């Protein structure tokens, strides 16, 4: 790996986004708007707002980064820029790390806005440190980036790429514990939810919500999300072929 090339790629991805202020605005502010909406929906039901809100904080980064990454890397593949880059002295790891870093920066800003709003303006009562919420959001964004990169290899158009969203994200959303506690689900569903990474991101958020200290469960959850993200990133790297048909 080469730091100059990785950072140049990060800077380039961020520069591309800078020419698209509308996308940036949506990425950064949609989660915050949704939280406000949720606050009104659970008008006065503090308990419910707390746990659903915390879960959402663990879901937004994954969805946003999944969408952005899958479209961005699909564009690289179809526009010929990926072919050009891979004919140059750019390591695949540099390419992937460059993207991951760019979207991690965005995810931090997004999560900071959403978490700050939830904790200070909407009075979400978090027992643990709000910083831990940011850590989970970051790992979660990394997971979204990894999944997006991976599925972009199987899409041949942006139309297909967005269709992967419901396929990859919806099952995780339904089974992550947001709609029904995971341990109350039918055993088969619970088993499935146990192997889906978003479950652990949501779990980790709720750990921070309820415990003042960093719990063992929290660390386990974070390790799982990070581990799956790295695994999927490696799979994504394998789909970047220098030589194509």
């Amino acid at each position, binding site marked *: 790996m080469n730091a100059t090339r990785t950072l140049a790629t990060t800077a*380039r991805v961020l*520069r591309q986004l800078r020419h698209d202020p509308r996308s940036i605005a949506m990425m950064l502010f949609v989660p915050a708007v949704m939280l406000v909406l949720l606050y009104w929906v659970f008008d006065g039901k503090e308990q419910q707002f707390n746990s659903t809100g915390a879960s959402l904080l663990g879901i937004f980064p994954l969805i946003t980064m999944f969408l952005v990454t899958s479209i961005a890397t699909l564009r690289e593949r179809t526009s*010929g820029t990926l072919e*050009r880059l891979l*004919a140059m*002295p750019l390591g695949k790891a540099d390419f992937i790390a460059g993207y991951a870093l760019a979207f991690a920066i965005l995810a931090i800003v997004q999560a900071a806005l959403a978490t700050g709003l939830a904790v200070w303006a909407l009075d979400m009562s978090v027992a643990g440190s709000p910083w831990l919420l940011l850590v989970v959001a970051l790992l979660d964004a990394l997971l979204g980036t990894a999944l997006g990169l991976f599925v972009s290899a199987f899409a041949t158009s942006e139309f297909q790429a967005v269709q992967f969203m419901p396929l990859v994200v919806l099952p995780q959303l339904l089974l992550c514990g947001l709609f029904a506690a995971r341990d109350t689900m039918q055993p088969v569903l619970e088993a499935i939810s146990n192997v889906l990474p978003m479950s652990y991101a949501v779990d980790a958020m709720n750990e921070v919500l309820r415990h003042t200290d960093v719990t063992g469960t929290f660390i386990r959850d974070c390790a799982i999300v990070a581990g799956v993200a790295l695994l999927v990133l490696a799979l994504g790297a394998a789909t970047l072929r220098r030589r*194509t048909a």
Partner: protein
Amino acid sequence: MMNLSDEPAIRARGLRVIRGSRQVLDGLDFDVPRGQITGLLGPSGCGKSTLMRAVVGTQAKVTGDLTVFGEPAGSAPLRSRIGYVTQAASVYRDLTARQNLEYFAAILGIPRKEARTQVEQALADVDLTDHAEALTANLSGGQLSRVSLAVALLGAPELLVLDEPTVGLDPVLRRDLWNLFHRIASEREAAILVSSHVMDEAERCHRLLLMRSGRIIADDDPDALRVRMGTATVEEAFLKIVDAEKAAEIEKGSAVQ
């Protein structure tokens, strides 16, 4: 002893490529010398782009011997020595021309200060200095393909592989670019492999490779080709060779029956 610079930039022996289920390149033998412009000509679909992709190492299912500067095509040390322009402009549409060049210069490992002068030079070479700050999505087709060409000029590559770099450009610009190619070939001893459909450009090459359905049907310099075929232009020579090939194929076909 063989002098190092006598060794051709590209050397192909029995080069074969399969795309899909088809044999797209069918056992090619050719050399591309240094310090010269080699034109690659042939009808649409004959395999020009495939050959170029094999040379730069982005084509899968390549068999036979294919070396660039003595190393197997596509090997890592070659990646900073080759400038490659794909047939469709491959640049980021949501960046300006200058931002595109700055990024690719960083990927090529050109030191920052050096990069600034090279980016300026490349922009000037393709006559885009005035449009350097425009988003490439807002450029005209010809301007866009010039941004793509400018990227390939970065880092003073020893081999330029240019897939139809002058398509859609006006005669003045085309002449200027060809002058640039000649300058690069003579001043830097660089090898240039350029594909084209425009036959008057063929006259400006030092050597020509004529292709037809995955094979090379002539490998000569333009003068020799015209003399050998007894024609006034390369275009007529090319048509004469293709017609002769077609006739031979039909004869062979009827002989089998």
